[in-house]
């Protein structure tokens, strides 16, 4: 059942993300906010960096990166949300997990964007390599890490009555941490 919930939630959220109005009113503004945040962070040590919509640009060199779908962390977040929703836990824990996942994935995504911005100016070949392969893997790995740590935070699920009956006499069960 959790596998089915995971697949359904994943596909549903992904389909919703691709809808035109969602792209126009949620994803594009959100991606623009990521570009703005990246620019603010970069301007603390590099005043030439500017954000224009979803484009991050170096005013001195003209080098620019455009933050496209797949580079805004939304897909990785969708995967983690689907996994969290499919995991048996109270909604308070699930919402906490989703919030933590959002922070963790977006924090690493900012590092990705900033690193790619400078990598592009240093070596376009390495930029392509990091952009298309390495960072994609690192972001989903980040999602996996957050999910594993979240599951460790969960309280133990009480066993169902049938299982309790089967374990009578096992009073030395492992106590919770």
């Amino acid at each position, binding site marked *: 059942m959790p596998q089915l919930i995971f697949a359904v939630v*994943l*596909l549903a959220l*992904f*389909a919703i993300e*691709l809808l035109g109005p969602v792209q126009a009113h949620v994803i594009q503004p959100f991606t623009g906010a990521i570009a703005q945040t990246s620019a603010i962070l970069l301007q603390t040590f590099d005043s030439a960096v500017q954000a224009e919509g979803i484009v991050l640009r170096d005013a001195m060199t003209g080098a620019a990166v455009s933050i496209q*779908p*797949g580079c805004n962390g939304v*897909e*990785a977040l*969708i*995967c983690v949300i689907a996994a969290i929703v499919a995991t*048996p836990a109270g909604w308070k824990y699930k919402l906490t997990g989703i919030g933590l996942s959002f922070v963790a994935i977006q924090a690493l995504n900012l590092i990705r964007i900033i690193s790619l911005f400078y990598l592009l100016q240093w070596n376009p070949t390495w930029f392509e*390599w990091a952009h*298309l*392969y*390495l960072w*994609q*893997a*690192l*972001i*989903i*790995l980040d999602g*996996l*890490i957050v999910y*594993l*740590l979240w*599951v*460790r935070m*969960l*309280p*133990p*699920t009480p*066993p169902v009555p049938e*299982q*309790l009956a*089967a*374990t009578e006499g*096992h009073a030395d*069960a*492992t106590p*919770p*941490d």
Partner: protein
Amino acid sequence: MPRRPIDRFLIATVLWLAPAFTVWYLLASVLLMPIAGWVQVVLTQGFGYAIVAVEQQGTMVDIVTRFVMAAPTTGAAPPNAQGQLVFSINALKYAYGLPLLVALTLAAPTAIGEKLYRVVMGSLLLLPVPVWGITCEALKVLVFQMGPGVAGQMGTTPFTRELLALAYQLGYLILPAMTPILLWAAFHRDFLRELLPQARRATPPAVTGE
């Protein structure tokens, strides 16, 4: 060395990523051969009215179509020249799940023989992911990027175009990253139970054998 298994596993995974990606990239031309072969089968058998052949060129896959188009005026071709429509797809952007799976598998504390078995099985089970991605990109290029003349001959409807767009995005944005994680989790259920005490405590001792 970190005390908790989860910390050891996470650090080992990150450390294994660099060599896994390096070896994967060096062997990419060989590793992509079965993928290009399957793409050839799917596209020429399923869409033979549009695609004649699929040819691997290193890490690129060339899609050779039946469509004839005017040659670009900026090239060396003579005026009014025509040519067969061929375009290239970067196959690696759908195949990076393999080094991720390898890094995760090597980081998990299993016997070397078991790691090898899981890597081989995992790489076989991962094959459909890049095949799906490349196939959908080839069809997307023909339906959405080559103009109404080519799109009209692909015989699509508004519904199948929406479906193709969804399948392409799924094959590009979700499947290459998500599938290795799911395969790894399926191969390492025992280790996951060790990593996640919650999962262990959720099941009574008599069932787990604790």
